[in-house]
């Protein structure tokens, strides 16, 4: 494959598209993002648990939204990012993009699971049951299945190149379907239940609540970047074992 080149501002960005040059770069970036994640998470939790006022309707249990909402945002956003890298890999045939996509999937699945778990923890005191077929919870559940499908397909195919490309097609098909699934579930939900209390529509969001939530969302971003960079390094090590540049390290 001839390497295409994309030169913006005197930097050939495709240089970093090779695993060989990306590996040390990722290694250098991880600590920064990891520390930023830790600091933002500490600040966000502090604001969430000690500064934000108690909700007059839901009491203290509402505080779980500081984890739930950022996790839910992240879970959907990461699927988009994953599909983006998969699509780039399919079009430009860059190995690193496929590696990025496979590194992002477990983090995305983790956040999806976290959103489901916290949602159910919140549901028990609020609605009195662990699980409600709320539109958001249901679409999160289906999103979790989509992540699992992507990972299972990649794991089942032995040839890494075929696994990458097959996974990419699946991710793209999934990303086209996500809005359709989301709106169908929402429609189904309104038809069956009428308006229900939504998790994100917390009554009268105080400014401090919003601050806490944004801090936690940023922390989730930083964590996702750090975790997927770390994972992509492992993927590179696994895929490129035996390559000359790795032996030289």
């Amino acid at each position, binding site marked *: 494959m001839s390497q295409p080149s994309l030169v913006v501002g005197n930097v050939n960005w495709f240089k970093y598209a090779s695993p060989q040059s990306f590996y040390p770069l990722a290694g250098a970036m991880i600590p920064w993002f990891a520390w930023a994640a830790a600091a933002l998470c500490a600040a966000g939790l502090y604001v969430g648990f000690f500064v934000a006022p108690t909700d007059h309707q839901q009491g203290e249990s509402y505080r779980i939204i500081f984890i739930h909402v950022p996790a839910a945002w992240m879970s959907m956003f990461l699927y988009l990012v994953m599909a983006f890298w998969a699509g780039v890999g399919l079009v430009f045939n860059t190995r690193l993009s496929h590696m990025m996509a496979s590194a992002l999937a477990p983090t995305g699945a983790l956040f999806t699971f976290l959103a489901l778990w916290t949602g159910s923890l919140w549901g028990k005191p609020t609605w009195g049951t662990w699980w409600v077929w709320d539109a958001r919870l249901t679409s999160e559940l289906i999103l979790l*299945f989509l992540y699992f*499908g992507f990972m299972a397909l990649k794991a089942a195919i032995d040839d890494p190149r*075929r696994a990458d*490309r*097959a996974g990419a097609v699946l991710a793209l*098909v*999934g990303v086209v379907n996500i809005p359709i699934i989301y709106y169908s579930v929402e*429609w189904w939900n309104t*038809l069956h239940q009428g308006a229900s209390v939504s998790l994100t529509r917390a009554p009268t969001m105080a400014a401090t609540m919003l601050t806490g939530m944004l801090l936690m969302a940023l922390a989730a971003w930083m964590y996702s970047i750090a975790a997927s960079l770390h994972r992509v390094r492992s993927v590179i090590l696994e895929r490129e074992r035996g390559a000359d540049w790795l032996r030289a390290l």
Partner: protein
Amino acid sequence: MLTALRCVIRRDLLLAMRRRSDVATALLFFVIVVSLFPLGVGPEPNLLREIAPGVIWVAALLASMLSLSRLFAADFADGTLEQMILSATPLGAIVAAKVVAHWLVSGLPLVLIAPVLALQFDLAQPLLPVLTVSLLLGTPVLSLIGAIGAALTLGVRGSGVLLSLLVLPLYVPVLIMGAGAVEAAAVGLDNAGHLLLLAAFLVGAAAFAPWAISAALRISME
């Protein structure tokens, strides 16, 4: 090109006719799954009437999935798929023809037998045409989406279970709209929206799926 497409459809139908038992098995599976529900939830007529659309739709989903793994597997094993990829006709069109043949063999019989099963659940007579129309619009979408999964899992170990993991979440909108159309009609609501959306899914899937299926097949052939 039309000659080639007609030839592919004719060939697949001919093959299905010479292997009639495979077709019958999927159909029988559909009947059995639907018949198990009253045994599981009890014979209370009101309850059965209420769950009938959902039960029939879920069973149709499962039954159409059962036959998916056969869609490309035989052609993959004996090398015909290579010839299809190297054909003078665009692969997307050949694949579309194969999906049409597959639907005629495995989707259409479900549509035809569903009203009979609905009678077992004492579904009101005016709802039977609604159920049939919803299945008529929905089952081709299931075949189209399922074919993507079948193409991706070709020759992969444990492909049957994997296929269901990939495909079932994508079936959700069809299930919601299909069963929803019947349920809405049952409570006297307007169900035109459901059916129109199902039709829109069909158009969208028909436009998008052949592309994805042929991309997946090319990848699986490597």
